[in-house]
């Protein structure tokens, strides 16, 4: 289906009748924020600093509440449906990957509930960033994995392709604003996608990396790359596929809650034992773990590289630790 851009405002207004999230720009960077009735989101933005995962896997999430000294607990309510508008293919694909984990040995009710309540409306990329490398890891500027609906900017209109039943249902609700796509739409889309892919400058072929990783366990590349690491959580917090969390009890007066929040394997305390022993004692082991988790362990367990090539960790690392460069060195060392 086609959505003419002059209908864009009406389209978003219709979605904003429910809970709608879309990127907003603030101080030069975009982030997902609720769209209030009357506002029209602008999809002309570089990818958000924080990936869309934050909406299905919030940074802080209350699991239940209780009172000190008492055993009764209060669970969260059923939650609300929401539409996520303007999700990039890398971020949508990552949600699908993370879901594999949250569906693995036991179902994680919190993640799955939010995922089920959320309709993901994706947007194909036209202007990839300096460090985008999604094609290297099985994605692409118009990949629809993890989405319910894909939008492709054809200039004067968006091409809307349903990916799931939820996407179809969404379109059904706004069908008056849409028109059928013409016969040349597919070709137009292909051209847009090809152009976008052609602008991607960086990349690495990961073939052989997952199998080769164990052999590189003691390779000096880890120490060399980790030497400058500050041990902050930028790379992991901004990674759309990173999904580690910590569980804490937080007390306020005599009231308390149990909650979970993002954690990062780059923090020293991530694996710190009560005894004081740390099985990953330095930034070298932590950096090695981060890469191995994405390019080795996750592959072994779920058959897919847990990196979607969004380039965020490269863009925003304060000290230029570059996963593409690390993979290049790893390939060289194989």
């Amino acid at each position: 289906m086609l959505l003419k851009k002059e209908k864009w405002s009406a389209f978003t207004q219709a979605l904003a009748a429910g809970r709608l999230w879309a990127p907003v720009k603030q101080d030069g960077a975009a982030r997902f924020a609720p769209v209030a009735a009357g506002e029209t989101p602008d999809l002309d933005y570089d990818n958000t600093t924080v990936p869309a995962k934050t909406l299905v896997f919030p940074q802080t999430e209350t699991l239940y509440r209780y009172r000190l000294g008492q055993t009764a607990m209060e669970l969260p309510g059923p939650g609300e449906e929401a539409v996520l508008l303007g999700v990039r293919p890398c971020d949508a694909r990552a949600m699908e990957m993370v879901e594999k984990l949250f569906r693995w040995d036991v179902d994680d009710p919190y993640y799955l509930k939010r995922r089920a309540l959320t309709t993901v409306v994706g947007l194909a990329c036209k202007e990839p960033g300096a460090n985008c490398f999604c094609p290297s890891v099985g994605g692409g500027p118009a990949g629809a994995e993890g989405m319910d609906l894909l939008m492709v900017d054809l200039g004067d209109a968006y091409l809307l392709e349903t990916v799931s039943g939820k996407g179809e249902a969404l379109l059904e609700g706004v069908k008056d604003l849409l028109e059928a796509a013409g016969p040349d739409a597919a070709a137009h889309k292909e051209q847009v996608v090809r152009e976008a892919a052609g602008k991607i400058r960086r990349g690495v072929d990961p073939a052989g990396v997952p199998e080769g990783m164990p052999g590189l366990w003691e390779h000096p590349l880890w120490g060399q790359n980790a030497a400058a690491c500050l041990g902050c959580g930028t790379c992991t917090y901004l990674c759309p596929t990173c999904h580690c969390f910590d569980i804490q009890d937080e007390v306020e007066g005599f009231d308390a809650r149990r909650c979970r929040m993002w954690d990062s394997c780059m923090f020293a305390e991530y694996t710190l034992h009560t005894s004081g022993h740390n099985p990953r004692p330095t930034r070298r082991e932590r950096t090695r773990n981060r890469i191995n988790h994405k390019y080795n362990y996750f592959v072994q367990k779920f058959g897919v590289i847990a990196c979607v090539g969004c380039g965020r960790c490269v863009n925003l690392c304060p000290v230029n630790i570059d996963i593409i460069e690390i993979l290049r060195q790893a390939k060289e060392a194989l």
Partner: protein
Amino acid sequence: MTEKPKLGVYVCHCGINIAATVDVAAVTEYALTLPNVKVARNYSYMCSDPGQLLIKNDIKNEGLNRVVVASCSPRMHELTFRKALQEAGLNPYFLEMANIREQCSWVHENRDEATAKAKKLVAAAVAKARLLEPLEAREVEAEPAALVIGGGIAGIQAALDIADAGFKVYVVEKTPSVGGRMSQLDKTFPTLDCSACILTPKMVDCAGHPNIELMTYAEVEEVGGFIGNFNVKVRKKARYVDFVKCTGCGDCAAACRMAGRFLSEFDAGVGKRSAVYLPFPQAVPAKYTIDPESCLFLSRGKCGKEPKCVEACRAGAIDFTQQDEIVEFKVGAIVVATGFDVFDARRKPEYGYADYPNVITGLEMERLVSASGPTGGKVKIHNGVEEIIPQEIAFIQCVGSRDKSTGNEYCSRVCCMYTAKQAHLIKDKIPGANVRVYYMDVRAFGKGFEEFYDRVRREGVRYIRGNPSEIFRRKEKLVIKVEDTLTATPLEDEVDLVVLAVGLEPRADARKTIELLRLSQSPDRFFLEAHPKLRPVDTATDGIFLAGCCQGPKDIPDTVAQAKGAAASAMVPLARGKVKIGAQVACVNEDTCRGCGFCAAICPYSAIEMVTINRMGHPVEVARVNEALCKGCGSCAAGCLSDSIQPRSFRDRQILPQIAVLGVLR
């Protein structure tokens, strides 16, 4: 510690003091809803025996392991309830109090408000009590010995008292003899006893006492440790005269090539001495000392063919090879009696002390009138033409006291009376002399002072109210420019001799003592006592006491009284043989300490030192608390960026929940 907290909350009615304003039943009921509270009761007087029994029984029968008492101020009854806990077999520090009387029922009239607040205060106390930890007040052995620094009348008196009680005393005196300032005085006001006559026996007692080890011509170099356990290092300066062989005959001094060439410190610069000298005839010990700076042999390496003193000394006591000796010992308490300096009159240039020989200080006057002084007690001066007996004599009061321009805002307390005394002595020795005293106020506050002042005036000494602005010479006379402020008459008073009643100042080297003993100074720069009213002989450091003028100007009886007080205080740990170390002291988490030393820099008691420990094979510096010195103030903790040092009972993890409860409950 693994035991789960079981709290009892006890709400006191305090008769109607609390109950009239606070609904104690409601507070009690509320307390039962708080986490870990097993028992909550209210009672008319919790501090009474039956009240305490309630707590004790519950500890025994209900297995309580933390107690909250909501009653009066902890400043009132914390110790009472701690004792009750202890008697019931519970660690006394498992107590927390909620002050619902002084800071609640007595200051708020509205019953609802006061009750609500009492509930909050109880909740906050419960929040903290849940997290209290058991503490132990420890005791360490105390060395049954004392150090007295300074051998003036204060030091002598303190030493004698302590020694008489049977404890070892080390007296360290900087100069070659004990006696101090008092020995320089002629008569003492207002009774006019001869200073030497009353002092000398004490000096001799001090030197001869079996429990006193007297170290003259010696200085304390280092003091470490804490109450009960001070480690002292003393440098005994080389006298170059064998202490045992010297008979005190004085042949060396008479023979000295430099005999009578140096100003005598004892005679306040009025008299002279040799390079080898006895400070004054009654000096104790009566042993000669060679001043290395004035001795030709010691300062230049040559004294004729052979130093004359060596020849002269029949005992063979002169020993130029002597070296300073370092002595180390341990004491349980320290009395500081370092005395005072007199104000340097050159700092009031308008009085011409530096320019005119006949402008002298009160202390110089003492030596002039003293029978043992350089003039044999005759007041003679040289007016530039001839030697005369002065007839016109003026005293000027408050020189270097009560004078912001000199930085000394305080009253020196002795000048009014020593001036009166000296005026009397002059009248006595020079019967026809005209004596006047220029004063601001006369402060004759002590026993017999006013009477003495009155007597002196009746003897014909004129008191003129006025603060001289200038002194200059006119021929053989000195002219004092002054306004008599009672009659508003400008005067130019021609006199033969001017005596400046100089005030008392802290010792020039007071800083050294401060650093040595970690003392503090009050704004007048004298040593600071722990409390101006209630602990006037204590210092902020336990086990260190002050006596005499090092703490502030005072006369002889006050000095002796304070010395006796300091001695009595110093004897407490010595007599007990043990000292208590506070339980609520700071402790360091050596795992997280980053060794920056902020806490050590902050601690006013130098209770924290940095030590090197082995952390997994790496030498790292961490802070360590000397629990005997720590007072538990917690300034270190608030300055520690990694929260690695914490005062017990006031830890962050105990205070933050209190904050939370007081904040959250609205």
